């Protein structure tokens, strides 16, 4: 069992309790997708591609008043320590749903009745917090595709490790820690659109964990904004 935190409050990967892993985002890296983004979040390597708005098949799934959002979160067989069967697992299906519901409030679906916006996420390498990293990439891919949005969606997790609230839980901390709370917000509107909790927290810890995660989301937002600005406006972007 890994020692998750040493006497100086340093975590198993060398980080301090309030330190985010390294995050980098590349925008518009795929040729066929309408919008795309690639994110490296710690050891996570995740690709997001967006198509749409486009025609819905089968036709009976179309909504007459608004567009629909579809989301597929999938892990490549080589993305995890023990090779994973390519068929979607129940975990992937659940994550697909919560990611879709995290993006829905941000997308202006009323503008595109009878169409669908497809968000496809592929985890090429997983390392704890992949659903948050996936959301961060998906939100940029939507903006890259020109889908009108009320706000970006920024996601990050906080958790409890060695009795301390920490920011951005990695794989070992997720497996052997005491709690994991992934969160996503629309940063300018201040609305939380994804939230889950795995583990046990006192009411006070819950509040701290929530604030910590939101602080992480805001840091992610700055990285997302920079990535979009650089892609579209070069170094002249403000």
């Amino acid at each position: 069992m890994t020692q998750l935190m040493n006497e100086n409050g340093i975590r198993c990967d060398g980080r301090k309790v309030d330190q985010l892993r390294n995050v980098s985002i590349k925008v518009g890296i795929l040729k066929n997708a309408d919008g795309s983004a690639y994110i490296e979040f710690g050891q996570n390597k995740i690709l997001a591609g967006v198509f749409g708005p486009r025609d819905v098949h089968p036709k009976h799934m179309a909504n007459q008043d608004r567009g629909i959002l579809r989301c597929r979160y999938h892990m490549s067989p080589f993305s995890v320590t023990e090779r994973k069967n390519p068929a979607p697992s129940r975990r992937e299906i659940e994550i697909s749903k919560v990611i879709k519901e995290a993006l829905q409030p941000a997308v202006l679906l009323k503008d595109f009745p009878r169409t669908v916006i497809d968000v496809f996420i592929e985890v090429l390498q997983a390392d704890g917090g992949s659903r948050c990293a996936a959301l961060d990439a998906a939100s940029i891919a939507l903006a890259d595709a020109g889908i009108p949005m009320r706000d970006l969606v920024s996601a990050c997790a906080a958790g409890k490790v060695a009795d301390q609230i920490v920011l951005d839980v990695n794989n070992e901390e997720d497996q052997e820690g005491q709690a994991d709370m992934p969160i996503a917000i629309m940063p300018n509107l201040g609305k939380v659109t994804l939230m889950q909790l795995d583990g046990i927290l006192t009411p006070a810890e819950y509040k701290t964990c929530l604030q910590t995660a939101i602080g992480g989301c805001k840091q992610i937002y700055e990285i997302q904004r920079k990535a979009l600005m650089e892609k579209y406006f070069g170094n002249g972007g403000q």
Partner: protein
Amino acid sequence: MEVKRRYVIPGDVIITGPFRPEQNVYQDGDKIVSTSVGISEIYENTVRVIPLCGIYMPKTNDLVIGKVIGHSSLSWEFDINSCFVGFLPAQDVFGRDYSPTKDELKERLDVGDLVAARVANFDRSRDPLLTVQDRDLGKIESGELIEIAPSKVPRLIGKRGSMIQTIEMATKAMITIGQNGWVVVSSDDPVGLLKAIEAVKMVDAQAHLPNLTERVKSMLGVELGENNDTINE
């Protein structure tokens, strides 16, 4: 009057106060917020964003280039680079009194044909209706199709057609620009054709950067005169 511009991403508050929201923004209380990646413009009391990406949203009277993807005995279906499929009714081509068979439709326009058409009618409750009843509309017999971002089309046309005229005169090519971002370039002169294609792609890549007109003219080998370089309507 001065136009205030800024680079924005979705969620950015452009301004607060009694302004009228126009394209690609929405109102949240008294804040006007961008919905797209693009350049925000505040002009008098209106606010809008010119997006740098995004699909084509049909508008009545738009000229579009469409590709036939199917037909029944009543109409042809077109890919017009939008989430909506364009429909051209058979009677638009055959007249009201004639009921053509499916084969007769196929003979006029078959799957894979490119057509210049106008959007006759579009409201979001139904797919856009097209028409080819006009002198310059109909099947495109020759030329090369280039796809540019629909948001760059105004830049390719230029103020009162200045950009497109510059390219056509310098290359002797004929360029048909669809508002949906599909552009057909045709010419008998292969060198002129390649230069025209390059110019169109250059505008697509650099539409949001300043001094584009100078750079296009320079690439085409045209004399640089005075020309206003604005990100236009």
